[in-house]
């Protein structure tokens, strides 16, 4: 759900050169230093779009830029934003009192079944199963972020 919002943001950012390789452009925009390795030419960020549009007809562009479908890469910041976004949407949590270190049971006054619902919302958000043995230990948003970063190999 928040992933779709992020995907739309990425698509709207890359729309001028959507025809070429929008996914690659988004990855390149996120990691600018690695872009120079991929292409033989080196160009500044603001002239990137004009260069792309200028070389739209050469077939070598299709060879050099691979088009893969993938989500934007996860960073600790994006994981934390998505976790807090999902938690703010939950109606039993007061969004003003929510912080990354707020304990679900002690600070926010939630139940164990509420915590199960929150973990299920995180599963739906990030798209992978969280087994109950580890899910019952995740009691703050910070711990959830750490767990997801461990599982998704987001280096801290």
């Amino acid at each position: 759900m928040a992933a779709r919002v992020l995907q739309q943001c990425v698509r709207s950012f890359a729309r001028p050169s959507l025809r070429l390789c929008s996914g690659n452009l988004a990855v390149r925009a996120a990691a600018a230093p690695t872009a120079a390795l991929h292409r033989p030419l080196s160009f500044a960020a603001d002239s990137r779009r004009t260069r792309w549009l200028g070389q739209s007809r050469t077939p070598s562009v299709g060879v050099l830029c691979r088009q893969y479908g993938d989500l934007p890469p996860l960073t600790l910041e994006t994981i934390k934003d998505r976790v807090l976004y999902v938690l703010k949407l939950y109606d039993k949590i007061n969004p003003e009192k929510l912080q990354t270190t707020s304990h679900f049971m002690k600070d926010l006054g939630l139940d164990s079944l509420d915590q199960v619902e929150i973990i299920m919302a995180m599963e739906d958000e990030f798209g992978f199963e969280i087994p109950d043995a580890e899910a019952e230990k995740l009691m703050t948003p910070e711990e959830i972020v750490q767990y997801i970063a461990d599982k998704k190999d987001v280096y801290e």
Partner: protein
Amino acid sequence: MASTAATRAAAATTKVVKPIFSRDLDEAKRRVRELYRAWYREVPNTVAMFQLDITTRQGRNKVREMFDKNKHVTDPRVIDMLVIKGKMELQETIHVWKQKTHVMRYFHETEEARPTDFLSKFYHGHDP
């Protein structure tokens, strides 16, 4: 002498019994959480399959209400038995062995609550 009497009393009250599934309270609570997850994920499918006139949110609140009714239980065997009954209900709901009326029976729509305070009972009739 008082201490041996106390230990004998303690040994009498806490018998060691054969567990049904879980050995301690934590395992039993884990089973409860698994059952709650399964019911939570099943509610939208139930509402669609039986064409119920309730929203998913109402269905999930009803599931939470049924789980909260037994929140006070501490005996792992009783919890296991309740989980087994919940699983049976879940199986019947998933496979559509129930009908719409059986599912809506949880909502007590046509039952009137019995009056509790004195004046309501007085107006209702002579039933004590």
